[in-house]
């Protein structure tokens, strides 16, 4: 099997789906001539031209609103928001239009739309380093995907483009260069199926996106001390597949949730609530959450480094849980 980067896997999914269905088009800031600020759409403009790769002005409400209208009108737009931070400008279009139109008009209209956007950070400071997946996962009518590997990203993006529902497809700037196995043939992956990325029996770590990799590194570290973590990748945040998490808690009785988002009202809060409701009798220690420190992201490199859980702090937390 071929090793490909997360970026290339996403580009492959876009390209294959554009070849498969002429109604698929891409629109967003710098997706065409520039080739995408994260180079995800590089080369597509040359191949498909300006009728299918649409450069837009810097106006997210227009990008998303226009994509919603185009989706209602029979196309399958993939709208790129340069980063998830700019989704705030389009919040009304995402929440009040994309997510509502099917229900509000009694299923008369559909919005087969994908909004691709990366979370991520890198000394970008307070307004450009955020992670809003929990906000979107809060909204009925949206599907929220946040893949951690090239394989998952490609398979889930193809499913998203073929879906008749609006999908928030949240990538991660720091994963674009990450390599992984991606088969050459055609494949898709279903929404709402969590994936066990590493089996273990002592502690269940639930995560997704970049933090999943932190969880795996910590699990490697802990394995040296004889502690075996089961690492579960949610992949889709709405719908949320808890079944593998529950199966895991049957064995481990301990759950740690790792998210890059702030933990207050975050994905971890939801997952913890579901575990305590559905599997209360299985817990041996309180469900733990780790996420971003709850302050606006500082610019200084040393301060930024303190913002997120890392292999060490995760390993430390797990040690405390098994003590």
């Amino acid at each position: 099997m071929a090793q490909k980067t997360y970026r290339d896997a996403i580009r492959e999914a876009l390209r294959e789906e554009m070849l498969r269905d002429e109604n698929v088009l891409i629109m967003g800031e710098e997706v065409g001539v520039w080739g995408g600020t994260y180079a995800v759409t590089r080369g597509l403009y040359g191949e498909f031209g300006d009728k299918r790769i649409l450069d837009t002005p810097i106006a997210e409400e227009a990008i998303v609103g226009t994509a919603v209208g185009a989706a209602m009108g029979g196309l399958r737009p993939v709208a790129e928001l340069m980063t998830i931070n700019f989704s705030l400008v389009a919040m009304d279009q995402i929440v009040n239009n994309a997510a509502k139109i099917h229900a509000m008009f009694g299923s008369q209209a559909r919005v087969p739309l994908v909004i691709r956007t990366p979370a991520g950070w890198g000394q970008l400071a307070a307004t450009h380093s955020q992670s809003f997946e929990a906000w979107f996962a809060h909204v009925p009518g949206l599907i929220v995907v946040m893949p951690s590997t090239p394989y998952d990203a490609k398979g889930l993006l193809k499913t998203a483009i073929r879906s008749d529902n609006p999908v928030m497809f949240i990538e991660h700037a720091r994963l674009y260069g990450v390599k992984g196995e991606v088969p050459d043939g055609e494949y898709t992956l279903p929404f709402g199926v969590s994936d066990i990325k590493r089996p273990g029996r002592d502690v269940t770590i639930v995560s997704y996106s970049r933090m999943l990799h932190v969880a795996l590194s910590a699990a490697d570290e802990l394995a040296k001390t004889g502690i075996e973590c089961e690492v579960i990748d949610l992949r889709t945040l709405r719908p949320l597949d808890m079944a593998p998490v529950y199966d895991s808690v049957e064995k481990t009785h301990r759950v740690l949730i790792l998210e890059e988002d702030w933990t207050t009202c975050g994905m971890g809060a939801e997952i913890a609530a579901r575990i305590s409701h559905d599997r209360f009798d299985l817990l041996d220690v309180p469900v733990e959450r780790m996420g971003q420190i709850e302050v606006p992201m500082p610019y200084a490199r040393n301060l930024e480094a303190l913002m997120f859980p890392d292999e060490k702090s995760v390993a430390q937390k797990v040690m405390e849980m098994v003590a």
Partner: protein
Amino acid sequence: MPTDVIMPSLGFDMTEGLLARWLKNEGDPVVKGQAIAEIETEKATVEIEATVSGLLARIVVQAGETVPVGTLIGVIAEAGVEPTAVSSPAPTAPPSSPPPSPAAPAPPAPVPEAGEGAAPSEARVKASPVARKMAEEAGLDLSRIKGTGPGGRVVERDVQAAIATGSTPAAPGVPAGPAPGATVPLNRMRKTIARRMAESKTTAPHFYVTVEINMDDAMKMREQLNGVAPEGERISVSDMVVAAAARTLVRFPALNASYREDNLEMHPQVNIGIAVALEDGLIPPVLRDADKKPLKRIAAESRALADRARTNKLRSDDLWGGTFTVSNLGMFDVDEFIAIINPPEAAILAVGAVTRRPVAAAGEVRIASLMKTTLSVDHRVADGAQAGRFLQEFKKLLENPVTLLTG
């Protein structure tokens, strides 16, 4: 950065201490605030707590040694750092499942010593949900298990250890009593029972009437019915008693009534409460319109009620609107007993075991199946004669049980 553990000073006059025992082995993970060793002075035995989380990398002073205050007794290394880096062997691979967590401390035996994890001083023993469930299933008393989790919480490994060391679980079906000498706070159900029974005995003037019933025909009929019935549809003695009592009540409405401030409230329905013993109390779920239901249906419904009561799945409907209660202790070989009325009802029927005893009939002695029942009645509602006639009718029904078969 490794952290030194030293022999602490426990008072201005303390110069040395005895390391009584280590609670952690070399290589064990430790959590800040967790007890890692016990030391003894002339005055007391105290626990030393870890000041940081990590691994107990080295034990410097062995159990049994006495050393001056300030002496290095052990080293805690940061987690994630190879313990070998602190010159101590890495822990061996964890045992295969089902293990307590890897590198768990030696299982502490449940210690029923006074003052040491015995009688809980709080209303609720601190235990994790899984430990609670496991202890319940094993019939272990949580308050007698020493918790090694954070803040003394009883966790899964503690219960596993208790099971492994063969703490005798209580006999099945009988809740393990609290530890001798302990003060145990009442749970909500016990508080309710206490309040209502006291109220009943102090406000309702009880009198009691007992009758002995020949159950030969009833037992024979039951045997015939159960001989062809599948497991789940068998009829119990209680079912026959409930059916007979309900049919009798229709003819004695005064006993299917409630006393209300100088009025009698006559109930339009006959709803029989069936007392069900639970591990921590007693609850009388209600079988509605029992007078109109054939025996088979009474059997099915009362079985369902008892199941729901035992699995804590009773609905509010199951507990509401009872007009008369039947309590049977026959399964415990009780010959006869007297029950306290379940307010605001007017009467309760206490049922003893069916036993084979000699009876004199038609000038000869033979062995028969006999059952004693005692009716407790609220004298404000009814008198002895009514109670007597009620029992007479009730006895007649059970001694000619065929009528119970129809609704």
